[in-house]
């Protein structure tokens, strides 16, 4: 890993920004896609029919923001570290539903969340050591 800029240009901050934007976009896209779901329609398998929903367009804006920060992250952090860390978003969705919406989480899902957190810690550990030395 090469020397990194600090402040807003810090790649780890950009990785966080990218993850948050993906989290928001996934919720928007799912909602928008469901609102416009009509499998009987021609071309529906391509997903373009989802463009009829404003939520999908809002989701696309978040996708674009996350994409730009992700490109920036790729410039500085190896894919073998950045990509696994970016998947924290996969546990943010159930945790967000539990925390904000009071939805129940099954025991199996808690185990899955625990595994992802351990996996993230294992992946991030060499990074933390590297950062300390800088």
């Amino acid at each position, binding site marked *: 890993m090469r020397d990194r800029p600090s402040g807003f240009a810090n790649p780890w901050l950009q990785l966080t920004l990218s993850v948050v934007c993906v989290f928001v976009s996934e919720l928007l896209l799912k909602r928008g896609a469901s609102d416009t779901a009509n499998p009987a329609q021609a071309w529906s*398998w391509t997903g373009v029919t989802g463009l009829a929903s404003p939520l999908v367009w809002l989701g696309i804006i978040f996708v674009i923001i996350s994409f730009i920060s992700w490109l920036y992250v790729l410039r500085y952090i190896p894919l073998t570290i950045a990509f696994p860390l970016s998947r924290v978003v996969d546990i943010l969705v159930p945790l967000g539903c539990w925390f904000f919406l009071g939805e129940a989480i099954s025991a199996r899902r808690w185990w899955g969340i625990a595994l992802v957190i351990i996996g993230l810690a*294992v992946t991030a550990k060499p990074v933390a050591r590297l950062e300390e030395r800088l």
Partner: protein
Amino acid sequence: MTLLSLVLILLALVTFVGGQLILKRAMESTVMHGLRQPRFIALLGCGIFLMTISFFLTLGLLQRFDLSYLYPFQGLSVIIISVMAAVMLKEKLTLQLIIGALLITAGIVLVSLS
């Protein structure tokens, strides 16, 4: 799940992985040569093209399946991208990173099954 949806899910996965690898290569080329060079623009265009295909395929799949049903395939992308980055981009893949990627993949699959 029909054969067509399985093909579409796999196609969305392959275009996503390919797009990520190409984008990583594009951004690496900017470190030495900056943004205004034909190689960067070609790679960026190619990466964005693949990601766009993956995006619309996923959107189409979301209209048919729950997000939780499509999650395991997103989980698989973690281990596939880690291995492909090591093979194609010559990134260092330590045992620790492999274990981390496998745990994250297993966790995402468990989260989606419940």
